[in-house]
């Protein structure tokens, strides 16, 4: 088990590995996997915060680190709220897995939790890809602005 992935590739590979487990294997360790997947979601937020020269908080919001980390990541960066619901959904599916006594529901929640965290990782990794982002991209704006010299005409609007 990878508890602290070093990069997005590791993280996405681990999600794919879990996704490939048989239903029997998923169900036999559902709660542990739900915890690990939530941890992978937290790791994506760590990458974002560290890349912006921050120190990831140890705080929790509504009982969950991932929600506190998201709030920290969104400070001064409103576009980061585009992944707020993904963080909340990751927590929701985690809660379903922990509370459900129904195998079918547990399996479904595990699969959805994987997809939600994968989306979070893809979104954040995309935002961190400076070289690959375009001029018009809402996600890339804060990164590109650092180097942007606005033409005089635009500055004077």
């Amino acid at each position, binding site marked *: 088990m990878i508890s602290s992935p070093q990069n997005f590739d590791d993280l996405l590979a681990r999600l794919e590995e879990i996704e490939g487990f048989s239903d029997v294997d998923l169900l036999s360790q559902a709660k542990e996997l739900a915890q690990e997947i939530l941890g992978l979601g937290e790791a994506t937020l760590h990458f974002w915060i560290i890349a912006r020269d921050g120190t990831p908080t140890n705080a929790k919001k509504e009982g969950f680190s991932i929600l506190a980390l998201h709030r920290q990541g969104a400070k001064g960066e409103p576009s980061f709220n*585009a992944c707020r619901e993904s963080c*909340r959904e990751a927590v929701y599916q985690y809660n379903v897995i922990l509370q459900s006594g129904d195998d079918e529901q547990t399996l479904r929640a595990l699969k*959805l939790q994987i997809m939600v965290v994968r*989306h979070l990782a*893809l979104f954040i990794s995309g935002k961190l890809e400076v070289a690959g982002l375009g001029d018009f991209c809402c996600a890339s704006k804060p990164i590109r602005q650092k180097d942007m010299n*606005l033409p005089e005409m635009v500055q004077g*609007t």
Partner: protein
Amino acid sequence: MSKKYEKVAYYPGCALEGTAQSYDRSTKAIGKELGLETVELDNWNCCGAMEVKNIDPKLQTYLSARNLSIAEDMGFDTVMAPCNGCYHNLKKAEYDLKNDDASREVNERLSSKAGHKTYEAGKVETIHALDWIKNSVGEEGIKDKIKGGLKGLKIANYYGCMYTRPRHIFPEKDQGPGSESTHKPHFMDDLLAAAGAENVEYPLKTACCGGAHTLSDSDTSTKLVLNLLQAAEACGADVIATECPTCHTGLEMHQIRAAKAFGKETKVKILYFTQLLGLAMGVSPRKLGLQENFSDAMPMLKEKGLI
């Protein structure tokens, strides 16, 4: 239900005249079926979209404000924009003009330079096509017009990112029962359920479609879309209902690209919610522009006896 939305100014924006003509056509078609009237803004301009907004947000505010000014001049107090990007930008302009002196100053200066009346906040309300239908005829109005409905069709409702964010530019949302939620939007779910569809639980209904990365980082976009499509299929959906031309085009294009570039095929179909409502009301697929969709839903709809 609000009578004030029965006749509204219509701001199609550039996408509905280009890649999303079927959204334009189906929006007008269902309006007609429901007895609602739209009057297109005269000589409207770009809302400022992402390109202008990222370089100069105040110029974007002016561009959107000019459209609101036109609506006011035409005697309307409501403008309806089906495109999430346009809707978002007009709402943002309204917010900026209400709260930011510098935006007001730029708007006044550029309006004067362009020789038209300066728009002042509070004169025109911007609504989305979802608000328009939900608040004018609502679910009951839909049920009254159903011919056949969407029985047996499982739908994942996908709202995209700009319909609810940032929360502060949508003061009418999150106001309790009857209002739209920015956390878990439901207007599209409500309307399509009224049309007889079965909405599936879809955990990525407001997640990023990668639209902004499309040209510059296509692989990221394709992976994001593939995840949206696979999640919809995992939820049992036959169709993803969309309400944003950028999302819709992205889902269609990257569904094809995911199959070609990554060998990952998905079967879920992509339709505008207006196309789905139109089908439920017995409007012909051609009038709704289904033949223009890259995602060919016709065989699936035929198989389910919906057309």
